[in-house]
């Protein structure tokens, strides 16, 4: 097989090595090509960059801090733990970096309406937020099960003027919300811009979302160098579709000394089959428009994922992560529901920061790695979102475990 370099992807048709591409109905192909052209034009236009950077600063509140967590470091007993505080962004998660970029692009393309799928509701809120900011209509597709799990975010989206459309097919979670959003986009493709929330989906979304989220890694790298005058030994981020991880990792790809760890949701444990670890336990396949690692049965039917964290509860992963996994540039591992909930409590008690359950997976991995990296070293963990939305899930979980 031809050696694929991490810096030369994707190709013109959106392939990351053998992964990625555009596996969608013909009806959508022209729209995807149009989005790609508009994105390339925007990238070359300093006015786009200026507006994007300006809003990231004044509207989102960037740069987000890179915070040294002293008590957590002590508790972990090894490497210094730094948290990239995406939870402090406007709307409380990294998702807004991307929705802002896509909304500016949608406006340049003359679209009046945004649509999005959402799992935890963070991407839905972030899309509803920028829709309000730009005076656009917004429809958010959300599985009924997630609507139940993430009630506060549903209320937030409604307050922001978005229509939350319950999806009742399949498992009623993120996978089904994305399928339904693709169906609806086919019908509304002339007027509506589909804001995909992660580095998955058909080209150009994986590359576009990665680029918009790269601000996380660019800042973290600069901030770390400023604080420590060197590079960290390790960076860790959780991976559902993989957008905060792609954003953190991408700017470090050429720093050979920086080890990268992507953390998938191992749910009840990989062996139980109830998890969302597409890379660790899946096989190459095609879901929602691109080829990547996919949880599927022997017949190529997509399996249901499970994670306590709605944002990681997805049976696929972005195609660039699949490439990074094959090239062994990034190591992927799994954290169970129980480990994530423990990390959720630990950060809350140790640092007075309530993390999202998604980010708690990355924290739990950092706990495991801290001693190996050792006292002289440092780990940067992406704290991708805040945990207010997860209080109910965690309390429910704790009550169940106690009884």
């Amino acid at each position, binding site marked *: 097989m031809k050696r694929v370099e991490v810096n030369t992807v994707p190709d013109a*048709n959106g392939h990351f090595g053998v992964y990625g*591409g*555009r*596996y*969608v*109905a*013909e*009806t*959508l*192909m*022209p*729209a995807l090509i149009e989005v790609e052209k508009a994105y390339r034009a925007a990238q070359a236009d300093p006015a786009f960059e200026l507006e994007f950077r300006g809003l990231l600063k004044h509207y989102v509140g960037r740069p987000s801090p890179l915070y040294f967590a002293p008590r957590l470091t002590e508790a972990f007993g090894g490497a210094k733990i730094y948290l990239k505080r995406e939870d402090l962004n406007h709307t409380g998660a990294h998702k807004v970096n991307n929705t802002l970029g896509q909304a500016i692009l949608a406006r340049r393309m003359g679209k009046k309406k945004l649509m999005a799928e959402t799992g935890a509701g963070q991407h839905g809120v972030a899309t509803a937020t920028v829709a309000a900011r730009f005076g656009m209509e917004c429809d958010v597709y959300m599985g009924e099960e997630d609507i139940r799990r993430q009630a506060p975010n549903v209320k937030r989206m409604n307050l922001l003027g978005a229509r939350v459309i319950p999806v009742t*097919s*399949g498992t009623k979670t993120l*996978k*089904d919300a994305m*399928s339904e959003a*693709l*169906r609806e986009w*086919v*019908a*509304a*493709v*002339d007027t509506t811009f589909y804001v995909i929330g992660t580095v998955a989906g058909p080209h150009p979304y994986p590359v576009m979302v990665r680029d918009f989220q790269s601000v996380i890694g660019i800042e973290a790298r600069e901030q770390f160098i400023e604080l420590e005058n060197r590079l960290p030994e390790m960076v860790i981020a959780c991976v559902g579709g993989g957008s905060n991880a792609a954003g953190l990792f991408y700017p470090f790809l050429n720093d050979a000394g920086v080890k990268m760890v992507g953390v998938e949701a191992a749910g009840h444990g990989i062996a139980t089959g109830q998890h969302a670890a597409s890379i660790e336990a899946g096989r190459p*396949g*095609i*879901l*929602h*428009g691109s*080829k990547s690692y*996919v949880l*599927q049965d022997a*017949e*190529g*039917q*997509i399996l249901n994922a499970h994670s306590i964290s709605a944002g990681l509860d997805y049976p696929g992963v972005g195609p660039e992560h699949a490439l990074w996994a094959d090239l062994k540039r990034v190591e992927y591992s799994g954290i169970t529901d129980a480990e994530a909930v423990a990390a959720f409590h630990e950060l809350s008690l140790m640092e007075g920061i309530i993390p999202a359950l998604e980010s708690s997976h990355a924290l739990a991995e950092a706990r495991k790695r801290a001693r190996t990296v050792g006292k002289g070293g440092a780990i940067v963990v992406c704290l991708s979102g805040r945990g207010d939305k997860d209080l109910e899930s965690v309390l429910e979980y704790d009550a169940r475990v106690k009884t």
Partner: protein
Amino acid sequence: MSRIEETFKRLSKGNRKALVGFLVAGDPDLERSERDCRMALENGVDVLELGVPFSDPTADGPVIQAAGQRSLAAGTTVAKVLTLAKRLRRECEAPIVLFGYVNPFFNYGYEKLANDAAAAGVDAFLVVDMPFEESGEFRVHLDAVGLDFISLIAPTTPDARLGKILKEARGFVYYIMVKGVTGARAGVAEDVAGHLVRLKKHTRLPVAAGFGVSNGDQAREAARHADGVVVGSALVRAAGENRLAFLVKEIRQALDCQEK
């Protein structure tokens, strides 16, 4: 001459339009589905599209989604669909097109799938979520065994793209009349005629128009500028309500009466 070519040629000589009928293989189980396919073919379907179920059918409306779920619940696999095709082939010469989503096909292996399908008497594949750009890998193996890869054209497909796709098209061309998922609709989409004329400039292959055709009147209207019509969700629903033969006959009559 391939079965698809032969069928369209024969119909066109008789000044008739082709009725392309879609049913989900294994809905509600393989036995019933085999009976329904026979019934459809006996009552006027010229080309059979055999739907291969997929867990996440992103281009299908509620009727075909539900049929796919029933079929999967009954244990349908790609291999079993091939067996069904083989059984149908024993007693009919109508072209059989396997219609599905890419992942179960990719999972089966493109080369093995092409070989096994050819051996089963399948004539062509139509892969909804495999656009031109991604089709090369599968096409090579279909070409090797003389199977057609059916190209889809949408109302959104611009001219330049149309030319590129149609240059490589085989068998017949499937024109998607509406921007949306499969399923019944009140009228027939607007400007179908204009799009079909545009399409015909780029290809000599027969064109079948589909999406949203659910009764005889709509079929006649849709067939006016095409060589045939595709009826999917309406047949799937009718099969579930034990009125498949009746609906196929109605559509067949409507199509035939147009030309008299």
